[in-house]
Structure formats: structure tokens, C-alpha cells
């Protein structure tokens, strides 16, 4: 290095050193919020991730059995010590009432396992001594099946890919390979596809409806534009539940939209609008429209309208002046608005729950069912992880294309 270069490096380091206290002061102001968000927001999400792969039941309830299975060859029916260990574990489980938990967990992978575990737990309670293997096999031949034992052994691990695989309609066979689930059990890719489809449809409609509104906002006289912007912002401010309630009322079969359609003789009979995909998409489009309009408007506002006139005066026909000069410049706003609406639409819960039918429920609604009704937290968490990954992927795209500083509120 030359002397000049060394000086430059030294100066650079000195500047970094001098800036350090200021950086620390700036950071310390944001620190309370960062810490708060880590505890109250990031930690719950991480906990959700752990729940999605957590597998405590088998390990906790069957420690002796898992120990005895260590020396099992994996293909034959296990020997007496394994059954003796299982009997001992189940006795403890019966006393601690944890047998039901184990049964529920194993039942996810082997149907009928819940009742089999509970019956076995009742049986071993009465048995005092030996030859458990015969007793188990007598009760149910499946207790001798190597597949059952392979799955029990596999679930001795503290973590399981089971829930994540299920959330993607995949399963692990007893020998460890992964295959697609068939038939009526394969529902989750459908739900995910439907969620993406509805979000895409809503995004498309908000763009078609919103783009002209944003444009008219830029050309309207100031006073009128002011009123128009109020009409865009007010719905944004109105409680989501109020807006959804309004759509529930409007879409009812004896509701106002049907009244109008009937009066205008547009339909001969009352249409089923509520509890349908159509109703859900209409209501979601209504709710998301401002989120699409505002970013487009803020970009359009910065494009001089004289450009269009210049294009026209140079001989461009109206359509090519618009599509070749104006529209490309609005693209950043279109991308921002559409990505925002798409991201938010992915997470919809309330509107599909109240306006949609059973076939319009989104990933969010399924998560809620697994938490509240089926008490299958692992699967709920895994679906949450899938939704989160999809959303974050689009958010990263948003950051790459638009930037976090560009998020504005009206």
C-alpha cells in the first residue's frame, strides 16, 4: 500500500470510530421497539415454527419402548422385551392419562391407532406378569405389524417432518420414502391453490377497477379530487367488520342486490350470492381496492400530464400515447399496489368465513379449524408456516422491487 492509501484507510477507520457513538445512540432509540417486537411478535412466530416440527408425544410416553426398539431389526415382529417395555410405558401413561395424547398422535399416521392404544392401556392395567407379546397380538394383530413398529420407532425423534409434509399433501411411508397422498386426504394443495387463486383474482379486479380511478384523481380539478380521495380513504378507515357486515346484508338472497336485479328484470330468480366464491371475491375486492389505488395514484401524480399532450402533438394516436408513454411510467405504482393487495389477500380470514361457502375457505380458515376444533396444533402450525413462506417470498419481491420505505398510509 502506498502512504496515500494507508492514510485513506486510517481516515476511514477514524471516521467509523467517530461515528460509533452516534450510531449507538440512534440504535438505542429504536431498541425498545426492537426488543418488544422480538418478544411479542418474532418469538410467537418462531414458536409456531417449532410447533410445526415438534414431536414430543411418543418420546415422552414411550421412553422404555423406544429404548427396547433400539436393537430391533426393523423387519420382523419385535420380541417380548419390546412388548414388556410397551406394557410398562402404557401402565405409566394410563396412570398419568397421557395414553390419549399418544393415541391421538399415532392416529394421524396409522388410522385406528387411537382406540388401539387406549384399549392396550386398559388391558395392561389388569396384567401383572409376562408374555405381553402374546396378549398384545391376541388383542389386535396389528400390534405385530412391522409397519406399526417402524412408525412408532420413527416418532421417537423429537422433531418430525410429518405436519409439514401433510400440509403439502405428502406423507412418509414406513420405510422412510416420501410420496403424495391420494384421494380425499389430499386437500391442502387445493386450499393453497384456492388461496393463491382468489388473491390473484382480487388483485386483478382491484387493478382493473382502481387504475382508472387513480388516473381520474390526477386529472380532476383540485376540489373534486379532494372529495374523490376522501371516498377512497374512508372505506380504508372503516372497520373491516363493518364492511364485511355490509356485504353479508347486500348479498343475501332476499337482500338488496337481488332486489335491484329483480326490479331491473336482469334475472328471473333470486341468485345465490352469499356463501359463494363470487360473493367472497366481490367483498374482498371492495375491501382491497383502496390498497391498490393509493400507490398507483401516488406514482401517477408525479408524471407530468404534458407528456401525453406532447406525444399526441407529435402524432401518436390516443391509445399508443397512453400505452407507450404513460402506462409504463405508472408501473412502479401498479407493482406496489398489486403486491400489497396480493400479500394482504393471502391472509384473509374474516371475509371468507362470513361471506364464503365451505369451498371458499382460505388457508387461514383451515388453520383456525385445526386450532379450535381438531386441536391439531402441529398441523395448524405447519399450514401457518406454508402461508408464511409464501407471503414472505412475495414480500421479499416487494422489497426488491419497491422498498420498505415506500409503504405509505394515504
Amino acid at each position, binding site marked *: 500500500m502506498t502512504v496515500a492509501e494507508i492514510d485513506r484507510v486510517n481516515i476511514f477507520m477514524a471516521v467509523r470510530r467517530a461515528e460509533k457513538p452516534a450510531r449507538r445512540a440512534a440504535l438505542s432509540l429504536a431498541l425498545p421497539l426492537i426488543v418488544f417486537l422480538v418478544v411479542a*411478535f418474532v418469538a410467537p412466530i418462531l414458536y409456531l415454527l417449532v410447533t410445526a416440527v415438534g414431536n414430543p408425544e411418543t418420546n415422552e410416553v414411550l421412553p422404555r419402548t423406544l429404548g427396547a426398539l433400539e436393537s430391533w431389526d426393523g423387519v420382523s415382529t419385535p420380541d417380548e422385551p419390546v412388548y414388556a417395555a410397551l406394557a410398562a410405558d402404557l401402565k405409566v401413561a394410563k396412570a398419568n392419562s397421557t395414553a390419549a395424547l399418544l393415541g391421538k398422535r399415532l392416529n394421524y399416521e396409522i388410522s385406528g391407532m387411537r382406540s388401539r392404544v387406549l384399549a392396550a392401556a386398559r388391558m395392561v392395567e389388569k396384567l401383572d406378569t409376562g408374555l405381553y407379546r402374546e396378549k398384545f397380538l391376541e388383542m389386535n394383530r396389528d400390534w405385530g405389524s412391522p409397519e406399526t413398529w417402524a412408525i412408532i420407532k420413527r416418532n421417537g425423534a423429537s422433531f418430525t417432518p410429518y405436519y409439514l409434509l401433510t400440509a403439502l399433501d405428502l406423507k412418509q411411508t414406513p420405510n422412510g420414502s416420501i410420496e403424495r397422498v391420494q384421494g380425499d386426504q389430499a386437500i391442502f394443495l387445493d386450499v393453497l391453490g384456492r388461496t393463491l387463486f382468489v388473491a390473484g383474482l382480487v388483485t386483478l379486479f382491484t387493478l382493473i377497477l382502481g387504475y382508472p380511478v387513480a388516473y381520474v384523481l390526477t386529472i380532476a380539478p383540485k376540489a373534486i379530487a379532494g372529495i374523490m380521495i376522501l371516498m377512497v380513504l374512508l372505506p380504508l378507515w372503516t372497520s373491516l367488520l363493518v364492511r364485511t357486515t355490509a356485504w353479508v346484508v347486500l348479498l343475501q338472497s332476499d337482500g338488496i342486490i337481488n332486489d335491484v336485479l329483480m326490479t331491473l328484470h336482469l334475472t328471473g330468480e333470486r341468485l345465490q350470492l352469499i356463501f359463494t366464491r363470487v360473493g367472497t371475491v366481490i367483498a374482498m375486492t371492495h375491501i382491497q381496492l383502496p390498497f391498490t389505488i393509493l400507490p398507483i395514484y401516488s406514482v401517477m401524480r408525479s408524471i407530468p400530464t404534458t407528456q401525453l399532450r406532447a406525444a399526441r402533438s407529435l402524432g401518436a394516436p390516443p391509445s399508443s400515447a397512453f400505452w407507450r408513454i404513460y402506462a409504463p411510467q405508472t408501473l412502479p405504482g401498479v407493482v406496489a399496489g398489486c403486491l400489497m393487495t396480493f400479500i394482504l389477500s393471502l391472509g384473509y380470514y374474516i371475509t371468507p368465513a*362470513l361471506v364464503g361457502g365451505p369451498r371458499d375457505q382460505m388457508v387461514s380458515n383451515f388453520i383456525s379449524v385445526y386450532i379450535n376444533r381438531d386441536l391439531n396444533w402441529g398441523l395448524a402450525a405447519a399450514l401457518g408456516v406454508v402461508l408464511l413462506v409464501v407471503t414472505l417470498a412475495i414480500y421479499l419481491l416487494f422489497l426488491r422491487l419497491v422498498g420498505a420505505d415506500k409503504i405509505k398510509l394515504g
Partner: protein
Amino acid sequence: MWLPSYATLSDRLMRTLVVAFALAVLMFLIAPLFIIVPLSFSKDPFFTLPVREYSLRWYADFFGNARWMNAIFNSAVAAVMTTILATTLGTLAALGISRPDFPARRLIMALLISPMIVPIVIVAVGSYLFFGQFGLTNTRTGLILAHTALATPFVVITVTATLSTYDTNLTRAALSLGASPSSAFFRVTLPSIMPGVVSGAIFAFATSFDEVVVALFMTAAEQRTLPVQMFSGIRDQINPTIMAAATLLLALSITLFAMLALLTRRRLK
């Protein structure tokens, strides 16, 4: 209107069509909100327009019902606590971020904004499972913590926006004239950025007061908020009392919105 003089007939026609389309979309945006107002004053227990006979019976129902009153109280407490917490944390963070020396701004900004982006059901389920470990599920504290996390991005964004037009020389002048850092903040900086702080507080209040999904997961019957009460009301059997509740919520939204509009106008001047 708003066309140059050389515009052709087809230009004018196109323009008229676009304007008409935009006005129709604006009607689509606004009309559904106000449809519930006349229905809430209807005497009939079904939803038809025009209203045949007006009455206040659904409002009497609403205000006479302990469940609805309890829900309003719960919502108000949660929203006020959320507002205080989120405004304090968010304003401090915005002050830090706006300093030129702030390190890793993009990364930290992305973190601070992320509660707006993460699907609400994930926040709800995560909070339900995680806070449950500390016995905070089905408590007001748990609800307030989760709502505060959701509300802080709004405060950070509005205050940061205000600070971008704030002249930091004012703070320097105060310091050079002998003010202590804290009195420079409270007597010079804070009054100047007050509109942004109040806007953020209004956003935070509205976020908490409207929020349904987290509240559905995090509350038992005793902490039920107004939106949760409405949600279960609509799901079970929609009853006109909900129209009264919705109209009151609409009035609250318009009030908050008007406050915000006044603030931003003052800020622009």
C-alpha cells in the same frame, strides 16, 4: 372537462367513459358502507330497503345488553393501552431510524414493518400458542401485547414521514442555546412532530379497536371485544342489533378519519 382544445371527438368520448367508470367505482367503494345506516334504524327485523318504519329499537337493544356493553368496555381498554404502548415505542424508534447514523436501516425497517405483512392468522396462532406458555392466553394483557405489535408499524411510518420534513437544525439550535437533550426534545422536537405522533396514535387506536382475528384467538368470554362479539353475531344468525353496532363503529371510524384529515391538512400548510 380537463382536455386540451385540440382534443378530438373520440378523445372526449374516451375521457367521458373513463370518468364515468371511475365515478361508478367510487360509488361501489362508498355505497356499501352507508347501506347499513338506514337498516339500523328500521323497525323490521329483516333487511329491506326502503325502510318501511323507523325506530330506535335496535339501538335500545344494543345499549341495554350487558354483553355488548362489556364488549365495548373491553375494546376501549385494549385500544387505549395499545395506543399508549405503540405510540411510545413507535415514536422512539422513528426518532432513531430518522437519524443519519442509524445502522442497518433497511434490515431494521423491514423488521419494524413486518407486523403489517405477516398474515394476521399467523400472528394470532403464534400468540395463542406462545403466550399460552406464560398463561397469557385469554387475558387482556396478552391481547394488548399482540395488538401493540400489530399497531407499531403505523406509528413508525407516520412519525418517520413527519420527521423527514423536520429540520434537525432546530434541535441543534435548542441544544446550542443551552437546552438539555430532554428539554430540547419535549419543547422543540416533539411539538413539531406532534401531528405525526397523533396520526400514529389514531392509527394504533383504530388497529386495535377493529382487530378481530387475534382477538378471536386470544380472548375468552370475559375479554370479548366489540368486533369479536359482532363476528360471532354475524356468523350465528345475523340480527339487526349488529346493524346498530356497525353504524356506531362506522361513526367512530368517520370521527377518527376526520381527526386524521384535519391533522394532515395542518401538517401540509
